[in-house]
């Protein structure tokens, strides 16, 4: 078992087209570190220069928005699904 991470379409150029990848359990910050190690450049897509979550990205652990729990310190455990969702908007 591991944690499944859903990759939005716009980041799949980093994951060789994979829409879902598996990582080891940990905090969301640690998971992003694992993804950066595997897919260099990934972290800069999700986090700002000061290390906080990009304002146009929403991260869910299962059906919980991490902004309303422990943000990047939120734990993802075995069997959880982490979804990275770009804000979709326009005019």
């Amino acid at each position, binding site marked *: 078992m591991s944690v499944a991470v859903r990759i939005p379409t*716009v980041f799949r150029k980093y994951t060789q087209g994979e829409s879902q990848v598996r990582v080891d359990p940990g905090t969301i910050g640690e998971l992003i570190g694992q993804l950066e190690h595997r897919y260099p450049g990934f972290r800069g897509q999700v986090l700002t220069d000061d290390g906080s979550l990009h304002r146009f990205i929403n991260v869910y652990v299962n059906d919980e928005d991490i902004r309303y729990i422990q943000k990047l310190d939120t734990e993802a455990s075995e069997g959880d699904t982490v979804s990275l969702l770009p804000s*979709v908007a*326009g005019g």
Partner: protein
Amino acid sequence: MSDEFRISSDLAEEMVQHCKEGRPNEACGMLGAKAGETVKVFRMANAARSPVRYSLEPSEQLSVYNALDEQGWDLGGVFHSHTHTEAYPSPTDVRLASEDVPYVIVSLATEPAEIRAFRIIKSEWGAEDGEILEIPVTILG
């Protein structure tokens, strides 16, 4: 990357109907696709509740992604309406474009409604500028 947006006339009509029901505000939603053809219209709420802006509620977006995974479908596009202007990306559409899928715009300025589809190509996903690339729309019998 598909260079064509394919949808049945029934699903196109469902998308247009959702847009009409949203007036006077813009309406929006997502599309499920299989093998490059649209198979599902997800009618979604416009969290911006505005005649000139739209945004998807992230929790509803998550529900759509769950449904796509359960069905084995791809995200086939994002659609929204322009209530009084042509079916062409506005500067706001370009600035906020964030998914690498067709952006389908339904213009209600004419009757029947006009459906056009575009890709918005950006150097970085958060970039404010982007290139608008129109892709052909095929409405199937």
